[in-house]
């Protein structure tokens, strides 16, 4: 496992989206996970596929098994929707309006541009996600959302009082991990609070893509301390599995 990993540098991560008035972080995280896996597995950047791939959420939201995807949902439900619909249509065919309203599921009407074989929940996340993240791509974990309301930048290492690791109520996309330099700072703050004594040692962190637009956080991303289950990031880490089609001829049982 390398000490750092950033799938954005490989062009595997689709742009930061804005869920607007729709509680669909779960669908955006799932779509981002699938897009990244396709980009990684098939060796093309998401940008290069923008016209054909750029999956998103609308199909997942409308075709959610509860039919009410803007009222919240779960990443595993998104993956089940993809499996049940035998794939996902492109965002071009199935646009996202952010209005918060769901529509009739139109999945059958559109050509499928991506699909998955399976999805899995990672065990021992903080140990395995690095390995998974490096080899297989991104992961879509849950996180508690409250400190994020006021987050501007830097690595969050919250305590259970400020960020309950049990009440995870937001889905995001893990795109990489790394370590801060020993003096990453809190200097030059304009609209945040004072310059507290900061850790002099380097800090390991996860890099996560949020779905609140690029004006939030670090251009739409945030970082959580790695190794302390900050904000419950280890609770429900899920990833789709995308593999190249097996070209071997299938063997069936002889009569």
């Amino acid at each position, binding site marked *: 496992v390398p000490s750092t990993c950033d799938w954005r540098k490989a062009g595997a991560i689709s742009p930061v989206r804005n869920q607007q008035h729709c509680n669909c972080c779960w669908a955006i995280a799932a779509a981002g996970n699938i897009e990244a896996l396709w980009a990684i597995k098939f060796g093309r950047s998401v940008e290069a596929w923008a016209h054909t791939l750029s999956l998103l959420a609308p199909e997942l939201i409308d075709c959610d098994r509860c039919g009410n995807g803007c009222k919240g949902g779960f990443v595993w439900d998104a993956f089940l929707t993809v499996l049940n619909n035998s794939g996902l249509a492109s965002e071009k065919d199935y646009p996202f309006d952010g209005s918060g309203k769901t529509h009739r599921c139109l999945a059958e009407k559109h050509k499928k541009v991506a699909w998955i074989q399976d999805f899995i929940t990672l065990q021992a996340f903080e140990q395995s996600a690095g390995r998974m993240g490096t080899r297989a791509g991104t992961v879509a974990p849950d996180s508690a959302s409250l400190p994020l309301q006021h*987050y*501007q*930048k830097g690595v969050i290492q919250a305590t259970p009082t400020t960020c309950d690791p049990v*009440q995870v109520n937001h889905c995001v996309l893990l795109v990489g991990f790394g370590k801060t330099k020993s003096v990453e700072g809190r200097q030059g703050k304009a609209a945040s609070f*004072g310059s507290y004594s900061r850790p002099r040692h380097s800090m390991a962190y996860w890099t996560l893509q949020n779905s609140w637009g690029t*004006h939030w956080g670090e251009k739409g991303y945030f970082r959580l301390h790695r190794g302390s289950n900050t904000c419950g990031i280890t609770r429900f880490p899920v990833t789709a599995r995308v593999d190249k089609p097996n070209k071997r001829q299938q063997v069936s049982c002889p009569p």
Partner: protein
Amino acid sequence: GSLRGQDPGPQPLELKEVFRLFQMQYNRSYPNPAEHARRLDIFAQNLANAQRLQEEDLGTAEFGVTQFSDLTEEEFVQLYGNRVAGEALGVSRKVGSEEWGHS
């Protein structure tokens, strides 16, 4: 330099100015003076919350004014949160069935 004992935090006039800048930056307007006053109160409360987060954070994160600073925690969770996974899955409940008489 901690804020404690050095910087008393935004004063009323300063707060109104910070709020005005927030409104400009995020293009916020409110339908009437009462709502404006209510949002200003929420904004002040959120600055206090951000300061608490800042004090208790063990990392390098910075907290302060964001596009969500005029929302209460409840509004924020309702608008931008998700269902709580553990509750929906029932994982917080005891595993096993009473009907079977053993876990």
